[in-house]
């Protein structure tokens, strides 16, 4: 008979969360004991001993009211401050985090890795390396929840959400959908396998049969006709996408936006929303309905690769980005961080 009372702690942030939880629990226990104890003592000490007892009324005490308002509030501020600290950490993935892409769909999780590996309801990650998961939904709101890592984020259709963590303990942990999404909501579960770097390298080497995500994206780029307007070696009817990703672009209305994952997704699905200055509306068709969220992610990774390929020092011949794990570099890349991924 299993009776777990505490989840495993398998990420860098988990112990921080657990400590905060214990602190909250301790304060709550102290508060409760104080209150219940006082009531218990009063209830007994001041029980009615004769029928015509009439206690003297005590109207109140300003000092007591102020004291027992301010002190609890100050204690609550410590909760707030510590919780905010963790929240901020959760909200900012480190720039060197490795990317994984997860699409939630009734009722399964589809994971894609830049190297092209795909999984359903399974996620494999290495120890000691920040992992950033870009989340998308095909249909309703889902929520990506890994209790052992103490991370959760809703997956809202219509845009990308991001969740990151740094796993510190090998093992197999639950993955749950945590936002009610219909009939098989409780079946939308899976496993997260955290592996030692060597094991992870072996697993990755299995590779994706369809090529890396960027390669799959490149194929889609051709198939859907994007390359007709977005030429790679010269100016076409549409903006040149080389070096677009990560840059700041100026739009027709005058404002500037960052060309990130969300921008690329929006430009594919709703091209007229943010048009680069110098271009016109109603020229690029919308691809709404022609692409799954996974396909859009592949295109995003491909377009991302066009930028990195031209970073100084990167190989120019291939459009494959240097960050896509090539087996040769893997062992070096996955060596445990010396600073332990300080959070």
């Amino acid at each position, binding site marked *: 008979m299993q009776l777990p009372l505490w989840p495993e702690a398998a990420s860098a942030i988990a112990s921080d969360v657990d400590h905060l939880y214990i602190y909250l629990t301790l304060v*709550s226990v102290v508060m409760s004991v104080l209150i219940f104890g006082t009531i218990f003592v009063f209830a007994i000490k001041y029980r009615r001993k004769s029928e015509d007892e009439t206690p003297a009324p005590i*109207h109140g005490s300003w000092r007591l009211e102020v004291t*027992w308002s301010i002190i609890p509030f100050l204690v609550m501020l410590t909760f707030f401050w510590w919780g905010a600290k963790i929240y901020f950490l959760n909200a900012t993935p480190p720039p060197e985090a490795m990317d994984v892409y997860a699409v939630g769909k009734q009722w399964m999780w589809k994971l894609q890795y830049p190297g092209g590996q795909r999984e359903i309801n399974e996620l494999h990650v290495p120890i000691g390396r920040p992992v950033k998961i870009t989340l998308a939904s095909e249909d309703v709101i889902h929520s990506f929840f890994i209790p052992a890592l103490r991370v*959760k984020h809703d997956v809202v259709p219509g845009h990308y959400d991001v969740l990151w963590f740094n796993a510190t303990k090998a093992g197999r942990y639950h993955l749950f959908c945590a936002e*009610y999404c219909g009939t098989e909501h409780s079946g939308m579960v899976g496993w997260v396998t955290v592996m030692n770097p060597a094991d992870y390298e072996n697993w990755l080497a299995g590779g994706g049969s369809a090529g890396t995500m960027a390669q799959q994206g490149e194929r889609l780029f051709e198939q859907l006709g994007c390359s007709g307007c977005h030429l790679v070696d010269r100016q076409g009817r549409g903006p040149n996408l080389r070096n677009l990703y990560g840059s700041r672009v100026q739009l027709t209305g005058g404002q500037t936006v960052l060309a990130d994952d969300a921008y690329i997704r929006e430009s594919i699905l709703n091209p007229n929303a943010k048009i680069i200055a110098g271009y016109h509306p109603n020229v690029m068709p919308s691809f709404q309905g022609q692409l799954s969220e996974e396909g859009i992610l592949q295109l995003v990774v491909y377009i991302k690769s066009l930028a990195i390929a031209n970073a100084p020092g990167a190989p120019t011949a291939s459009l494959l980005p240097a960050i896509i794990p090539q087996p040769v570099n893997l062992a070096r890349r996955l060596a445990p961080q010396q600073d332990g991924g300080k959070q």
Partner: protein
Amino acid sequence: MSTAIQEPQQTTETVNYLNAEYGWKSWLFTTDHKRIALLYLISISVMFALGGVFAMLIRLELLTPQGDMVTSDTYNKLFTMHGVVMVFFFLVPSIPATLGNFLVPMMIGAKDLAFPRINLLSWYIYIAGALFAVASILMGGVDTGWTFYTPFSTTYSNTFVITAAVGVFISGFSSILTGLNFIVTIHKMRAPGMTWGRLPLFVWAHYATSLIQVLGTPVVAITLALLALERGFHIGIFDPAIGGDPILFQHMFWFYSHPAVYIMILPGMGVISEIITCFSRKGLFGYWFVAGSSLGIAIVGFLVWGHHLFVTGMSMYAGLYFSLMSMLVAVPSAIKVFNWTATMYRGSITYQTPMLYAFGFIGLFTIGGLTGLFLATLGIDVHLTDTYFVIAHFHYVMVGGMVVAYLGGLHFWWPKITGKMYPEGWGKFSALLVFVGFNVTFFPQFILGYLGQPRRYHAYAPEFQVLNVMSTAGASILAVGYVIPLIYFIWSLRYGKPAGDNPWGAKGLEWTTQSPPTTFNFDQTPIVTEEAYAYSKKPEVEVG
């Protein structure tokens, strides 16, 4: 257990609001606030039983990790309808429509509410809303969760969403009219000498509640109307495929639904103030702080809704704001708990059933409120939101708080309402059952939540079974704790000891009338000359 010989002190000839007129028309067309309160009492008890049946089915299914008792779709409908029925058709009306309707006019020395016919109308509107809700159940149910999140509710669900939403929409107007009536009544119909500073805290609590009802309910009405438009006509406000925002729905929904939980708890807190003062035979410590805290909760309660959306992708700064405000709103609740405790200091305390429920309330509400702070703490909420921890938290405040206060209030004022006493021994026993059953049901759920069991799960990971079985066992005890009072209350109508005007020796204008009261409460408008809870005429002690 009393086998007292029926020795009525009040003969059956004493005219009171119950026997002044007979016949179904005198009840269904009544404008007497006390009769309307009883109409509500029966209706919400029926809805509570319905919601309770759904709860039992849920807990029975959760005895095993597999989903083996009902299908997934049925389970999803069970928890949805449990929530819809309990929140909108039991918790929101509960104390205001029953005890509030009955007592507020009496406590301020009035003959009735300001708008008696609107009061009756509000009951009919409630029934109309309930009929729609029951219709949606009979037609096959709703499976969106009581929160109706889009785009599932607008585009993907195949159940009777609009019917249920219409039922909730209609019941909202009942709530608005009740609130409107109370606000006007409390402002305009206080007896001479009944200044704001002499009002019982029960009345203050209902005033604050009515403010929320009047200001917040219209927003959920419009939200549900937009939901129905979206579902019926696919207009696209909440549909991301055509540029809508599903999170807009959540913001609009919680803008009402968070203050709604204060609609549910404030009246309960009012009840506790009345019970503690009576059974400590002492005035309330910190009267103005308790009155002010009710208003404070009502106002600040409108500013915290975003804490339901911490993991939806809102900006970090919005998260900071809502977390801080949510901590702030806990302060007035804490003030109340401390003041109630201080009221008992140097009191003269007895332990009849209402007081036992009051003790239970303070304990359970304190735990519920503290765990709310866990959820308000951003870093922890990321882990705990959408898990059983949240379910445990809100059941602690709603059931351990609200329902316990309601039961305490029913027991406290039963003699006034019916002229009969309930059997005290059984009363204490059921209070104990409720307390024990409740804790066994819901405490394990805190643990399940931290372990990571998500809410609304039909089937769960096998290692969670033991805690789930414990929870179900507790639910069975709790159910018995609810059924026993149902039985003895009905029993007492015929066989209960006649109560007399003021069996508790309580202060308050309602206790100066006969039990049960006459139709117009007072033969002459009372003139108020003393403070609330003037249990002692000795010189007052002012502690620094």
